[in-house]
């Protein structure tokens, strides 16, 4: 769904690079390919570096009149982006190559069987963060990836959700119009790893937004803006109870961990509100 919505918003001549992951193995099984765009996959950790080479190749060839400049979209999962591919991503966006990097975040290494990643939220169950008598699932918080990308002062970074498809497509269009590296972080519910019925995929994505668990915002030229504000959020429990990976948090034994997670969700949204206000003021006075 992420790929479909992104490519619907992207020009027809878009070239796609993908990191190793469930997307790659499920869409390009030789001798078949689901891609009707030029598509390349090399390794787990290097999709952004491959994209920088594609951009350089297009630039060099177009100067010679041997080819055109085409939009480049990269798809990487949370493992390939938060963890093993972070260095290549940082290097590529620091160098200013023009491409849109889309992280489809299902919050764990689902392709290898649900192991924790830097994108797994606090308290979530995975096979490497089981809950037990002394632990309540993952003990660390989710890495703030958009903040890391925004710290490179890219022209555009945003979060998006498949449930808010229009917002997602608008963000893709905005990103691709920028002359430089852009980034969109999309929450991608995973039926297998999150433990829910496939039919509830969009509902869960929507609930993540409406509970402020996954706020939709953008950072354009260093100015933050919440694009789908949630003035009256639903309780976080409404989101958690839809997924098997959080069920333990809703039992009395893990009450403390639940409160901690709720506090984190609240603090993050308030931080985004303040950042929006502050960066807008700074932009208007500069």
């Amino acid at each position, binding site marked *: 769904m992420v790929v479909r919505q992104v490519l619907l918003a992207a020009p*027809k*001549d*878009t*070239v796609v*690079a993908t990191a190793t992951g469930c997307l*790659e*193995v499920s869409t*390009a*099984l*030789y*001798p078949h*390919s689901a*891609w*009707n*765009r*030029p*598509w*390349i*996959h*090399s*390794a787990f*950790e*290097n999709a952004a*570096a*491959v*994209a*920088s*080479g*594609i*951009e*350089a*190749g*297009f*630039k*060099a*060839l177009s*100067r*010679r009149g*041997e*080819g*055109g400049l*085409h939009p480049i979209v990269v798809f990487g999962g949370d493992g390939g982006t938060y963890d093993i591919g972070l*260095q*290549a991503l*940082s*290097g*590529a966006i*620091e*160098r200013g190559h023009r491409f849109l990097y889309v992280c489809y975040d299902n919050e764990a290494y689902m392709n290898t069987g649900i192991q924790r990643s830097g994108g797994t939220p606090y308290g979530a169950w995975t096979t490497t963060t089981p809950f037990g008598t002394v632990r309540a699932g993952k003990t660390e918080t989710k890495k703030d990836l958009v903040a890391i990308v925004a710290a490179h002062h890219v022209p555009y970074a945003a979060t998006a959700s498949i449930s808010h498809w229009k917002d997602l497509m608008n963000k893709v269009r905005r990103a691709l119009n920028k002359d430089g590296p852009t980034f969109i972080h999309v929450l991608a519910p995973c039926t297998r790893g999150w433990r829910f019925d496939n039919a509830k995929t969009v509902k869960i994505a929507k609930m993540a937004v409406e509970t402020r668990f996954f706020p939709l915002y953008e950072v354009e030229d260093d100015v933050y803006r919440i694009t789908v504000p949630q003035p009256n959020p639903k309780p976080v429990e409404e989101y958690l109870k839809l997924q098997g990976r959080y069920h333990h948090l809703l039992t009395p034994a893990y009450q403390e961990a639940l409160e901690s997670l709720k506090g984190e969700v609240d603090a993050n949204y308030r931080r985004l509100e303040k950042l929006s206000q502050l960066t807008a003021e700074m932009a208007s006075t500069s």
Partner: protein
Amino acid sequence: MTEARLARAVAWVGDEAVAEAVMQCDVDVVAAYPITPQTIIVEKLAEYVANGEFKGEFVAVESEHSALSACLGAAATGARVFTATSSQGLALMHEIMYNASGMRLPIVMAVANRALSAPLVLNADHGDMMGSRDSGWIQVYAEDVEEIYDRTIQLFKLSEDPGVLLPSAINFEGFILSHDLENVRPLPTDAVHRFLGRPNAKYRLDPSDPTTFGAIATHDSYYEFRMQQVEAMERALDAFRRMEDEYEAISGRRYGAVDAYNTQGADCVAVVNGCTAGTMRAAAKEINRAGGNVGVLAVKLYRPFPSEDILKHLEGAKVAIVMDRSLSLGAPSAPLAEDVGAALRAGGRNLRLLSVIYGIGGRDFSVTDGRRVFDLAKGGFELSRKPVMYGVKE
């Protein structure tokens, strides 16, 4: 008179010769990361970028892994691509080397050979490239600076040959060659352009004809993909000879897949790669002047391995000493010795081989050392079943 003879000789160090060759090769994308002793290549190219003389894209990446990844992406657009590295950098590229050869992308890389850590050392041995020996890259070893220059140009032609389409690496020992100032007779740039032409990739990332690069295979198809690489490597042997014919026509220079000195009927032939070939030739000439009869066979093209040439030149020899500047820990001998042995056995020859390890981590190797290595094989010396670790301290 060839065009090369019209050109004036210049003095370049090995790294500079690579950079100058790249400048003449109409390269579209260079992606590289600094590492000693290859750094001069990157710095020299960056100077040309700063002065507007390099017309392609120079991508100063954040690691060697990304260097080769960017090269891979660029090559997939159909661009002509170059990178350079050494030692730890090559080891970091290792994963992507297989991707590049598997996707049949004709990337050219210069490797200023340097031993691998630990312990960390800056000096030369071939252990870095031998670690990536089986990655599906064409590998040549140069022995002087002019050869480095010539091979850099030649490898673009060989890699881009439609029957080959494999990446390639020009190897030369770090510091010994990378920083050694020698005379080079560069070719006129227009002659290089005519020799190479422009790359004309059949498959590329082209929106008018979408192609999938880097699919996932199963046990039903992986073997066949690899078989295509095996066949491309075999074709590369003939393509190499054709390429050398063409290069000789414009330069008057030809190195061959192997270079033979006095191998026919010699009592003992030293088989060696890299710059020590010159050292061994000097040692052999001294021995022969004093009434001896020894030869030297320099292996220039290492992958694909020129087995037929090895067989031909060792035909009359009584003993061959195979010299390796790398270690295969726990192995019965060393990479070059094992390859030479396998080629001889496959050709039905049962020649006595002595495997000699030398020059590890840049340990100096002189003409006197060369004479001593030849001495190992004469006068009833009992040939060792294990490699001789020449030059190691007690």
